[in-house]
């Protein structure tokens, strides 16, 4: 089979119906078995989006993940060096995020672990100066001191002002202790073990408007701070909630801007892209030490930093979303420049560098993504194709059927393009791989650590292909540019951003809503990533939640 032929058979967007067709998932969708494969763009599935009542889903009550609990404890207790050791392992959603509501559960053994971790955290904190409530230990009237100090602490911990009864109950607990230090320990432990600290609590008993719950100003503050800082709100944000500043779009956007400019936004600027594009796992990936002796901790860190810097740049410079995948510049330090075979820069720090020609363009062709989608020894066009289809274009690809021929049974001495062609000669593989493989093969010139190469198994690499709209490409950068031009990228970034921000997978008819919402938002103009973030925090997904009884 010629590679051109297979690309024409349905690259990217036109493949929607075909992909679904290859396992017949459309029928399942209405049966409620799964909503993960539903389509919303092709002609055959357009009806799916017609005449739909607004649906904005609901995020289930979620416990903080490791990043959140670490940041929150450091912020609350005023100690940036606190370590959270032994917290239960995070769960990752189908979209790749550790902010998933459904899978994050807290069985009793995890609760036990959490309480032991918190004991350790309080012990760490009390071993250092100026811990909260410690000043009350030597006060003449300890109760008066505690009832004066606790409200501010609880307001931040619980993201809402406490009642007098709640303050008194904690003071009672502290004063029940044999000595003042034990009292401080008990009170601080009780605060952080409370579900109002540990969980993202939303009060569905109030604020109802029919089936929709509008988040209260304090709940909105909580959602904002966990979205942009992966932590609890600061005093300024809580004051804004109290003073009615979060009651309108302008006030919310103003706070979001302030928060994005704060250094705590690093939590979002690094976690979102690395989870979205899967390069968070760079730190633990293995590479064959004989083939890639250079793949050390320093190089991994440099790869990650390059990708993070481009994302950060697109946000802070208010650039169009497609810049992420089409940028003709990148960031490098001396180590990374050496890796790529660039002449500059020479320093240890990262600087902006131009990309020549069309070999590399944007984040997809960077070493971080190319490495994360490779095997120990060689690139994986299948992983690369799936990563682009599922996470950049939001085109779902079903899991392989049972008993399919596995690629590893095909002669490994052949170039990858030939191995994949042989694999596709089985019709049950071809149905999906006609779509997956060409996308992955377009990146064939990047080896398993993202370095440029011209040969595969001694033969020149053929990275050519044709998109479904007839655009021919022969260089990875050309495909990246084409991806940037389409409207799927914007929608897909928005879906992932919403999933990260509200802590659940965006699926089903909610995707239709988002498509409409984006169209109205952009009004034909190119959206910048900054605008998308700012519109997201005032969107219905962010500000409301469906009430379930």
């Amino acid at each position, binding site marked *: 089979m010629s590679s051109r032929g297979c690309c024409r058979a349905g690259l990217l967007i036109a493949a929607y119906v075909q992909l679904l067709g290859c396992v017949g998932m459309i029928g399942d969708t209405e049966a409620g078995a799964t909503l993960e494969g539903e389509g919303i763009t092709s002609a055959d599935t357009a009806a799916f989006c017609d005449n739909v009542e607004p649906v904005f889903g609901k995020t289930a009550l979620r416990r903080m993940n490791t990043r959140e609990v670490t940041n929150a404890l450091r912020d609350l207790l005023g100690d940036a060096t606190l370590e959270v050791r032994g917290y239960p392992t995070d769960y990752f959603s189908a979209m790749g995020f550790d902010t998933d509501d459904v899978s994050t559960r807290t069985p009793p*053994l995890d609760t036990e672990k959490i309480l032991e971790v918190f004991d350790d955290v309080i012990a760490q904190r009390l071993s250092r100066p100026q811990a909260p409530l410690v000043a009350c230990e030597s006060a003449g009237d300890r109760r008066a001191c505690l009832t004066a100090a606790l409200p501010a602490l609880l307001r931040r911990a619980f993201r809402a002002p406490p009642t007098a009864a709640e303050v008194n109950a904690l003071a009672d607990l502290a004063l029940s202790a044999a000595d003042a230090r034990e009292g401080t320990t008990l009170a601080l432990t009780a605060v952080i073990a409370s579900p109002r600290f540990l969980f993202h609590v939303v009060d569905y*008993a109030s604020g109802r408007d029919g089936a929709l719950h509008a988040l209260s100003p304090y709940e909105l503050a909580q959602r904002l701070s966990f979205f942009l800082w992966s932590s609890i709100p600061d005093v300024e944000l809580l004051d804004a909630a109290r003073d009615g500043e979060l009651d309108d779009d302008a006030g919310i956007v103003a706070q979001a801007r302030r928060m994005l400019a704060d250094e705590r936004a690093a939590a979002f600027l690094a976690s979102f892209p690395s989870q979205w594009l899967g390069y968070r796992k760079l730190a633990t990936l293995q590479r064959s030490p004989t083939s890639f002796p250079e793949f050390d901790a320093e190089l991994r860190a440099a790869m990650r930093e390059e990708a993070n810097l481009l994302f950060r740049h697109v946000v802070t410079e208010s650039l169009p979303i497609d810049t992420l995948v089409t940028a003709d510049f990148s960031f490098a330090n001396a180590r990374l420049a050496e890796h790529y075979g660039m002449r500059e820069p020479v320093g240890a720090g990262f600087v902006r560098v131009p990309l020549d020609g069309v070999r590399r363009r944007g984040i997809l062709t960077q070493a971080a993504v190319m490495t994360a989608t490779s095997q*120990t020894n060689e690139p994986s066009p299948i992983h690369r194709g799936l990563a682009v289809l599922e996470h950049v274009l939001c085109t779902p690809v079903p899991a392989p059927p049972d008993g399919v021929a596995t690629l590893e049974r095909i002669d490994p001495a052949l170039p990858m393009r030939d191995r994949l062609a042989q694999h596709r000669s089985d019709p049950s593989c071809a149905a999906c791989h006609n779509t997956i493989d060409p996308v992955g093969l377009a990146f064939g010139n990047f080896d398993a650590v993202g370095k440029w190469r011209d040969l595969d198994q001694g033969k020149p690499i053929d990275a050519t292909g044709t998109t479904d709209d007839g655009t021919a490409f022969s260089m990875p950068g050309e495909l990246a540019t084409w991806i940037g031009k389409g409207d799927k990228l914007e929608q897909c970034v928005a879906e992932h951003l919403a999933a990260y921000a509200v802590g659940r997978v965006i699926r089903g008819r909610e995707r239709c809503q988002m498509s409409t919402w984006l169209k109205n938002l952009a009004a034909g103009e190119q959206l910048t990533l900054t605008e998308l973030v700012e519109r997201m925090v005032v969107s219905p997904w962010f500000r409301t939640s469906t009430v379930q009884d």
Partner: protein
Amino acid sequence: MKRSWEIERRTFLRGLGVCVGLPLLDLMQPAIARAQTAATRRLVWIYTPNGIMPDGPSDRPPSYLENTLTDVQADVSTVLGLTNQYQNVSGSHFAYWAPFLSGQPTNQPSAAAKTFDQYIAPLQRGATLETTSINAYPDPSPYLYNAIQANNPSWRGADQYVPAYTNPADLYTKLFGNGVPVEVDTRLADQLARRRGVLHYVMDDVRKVRAMAGADDRVRIDEYLEGVNEMDGRLRAQIEGTPTQTNCAAPDPVVASQNYPQRLQSFYDMVYYALRCDLTRVVTFLHASENTSLYHRSFVPGLVTNTTWHVNSHYMSPGYTDDPSLPSNSTDESTNRADYARILAWHNTRIVDFVKRLKATALPGGGTLLDECCVAWGTCLGESTGHDRTGLFWTLAGTANGALRKGARIRATSPAQISNLWLTIMRAFGTPATSLGDASSVISGLLA
């Protein structure tokens, strides 16, 4: 880390001092004084992941597995050729535990049906744990599967699973921790009482959050409350120095071990004593989660390759690896075959040793502990490289107090769901329920 929410381990061990160091078997003998009735039946369901490697005629179990059964031939029945039709629901191996063990496909925990063991558990209550569920090697962050569904085999119904113990020390505390008197000094008791004050504050807050939540969120907050409650109960028991309820001594205390064979052995030791002391009557026990990343070379003699169990199971795919970051199979298939046989025989031997131990334990009223049991073990696939779903092989030992046959050798000649086997076991235990998901019939050749 110190287990700060409990009495220090040393204090705990002092309480245990009375039995530590004595020959356990002698000490235990008179302790088995519980009422024996004809209805006492015990289920021990054991699972090894990833499928098997046929190595002979299709109507014969693999020889390397049969060889491990030599000493217990007369005590076991085998079933070959069962079908697992639910693989597609969540990947190519199996359909999560709830579907596999209930015969009702879904990949949503919220639609999970009751698994067959949970029909049996309420009929056969142990003194301490209704169901002892164990996962000796959970997958910490399964990418393919929902973690809850992949790591916990027993389900009572939608969103309700029996949390599997993954740490032997936790199971030890649960089974034997409260059963042994502990000396408590009053200063420590007061301190523990104040610790309870923290938990009570937290419980009050849980109630507040519960009042704000919808029905689906209540499940999640109740889960947290359950954990806090359990800890509170444990603190209370320690403060009061609860006297033993079981009149049955505990095995040596175990500590958490990263060493897999030790951890597995600790779990088997505890299951043995728990059955013997009647602390539990239903056990579900995973040697590892499906698709596991467990490596065997450090403890299974003779292995040449050093790959995960799942990669080993693709023995017909030379050089295979399923994770780009992990080592791959040998490029020589015969090497992979030899290794896979050693790995599966190693696991089968652990199970057979456990069966032999049950058989060597005489009951006061005659017969052996094995007679009361149905020990059933197997996996979700036939031939593993091709994810064959029709050649499942399961072994049963013990008669569940005369309800099951010994020595049967059954081969399904027409498609028979794996759920037929579960329904057969339910029948042997006399559950009121007479159907299970898609089970079409019982396997009558297994019933006495």
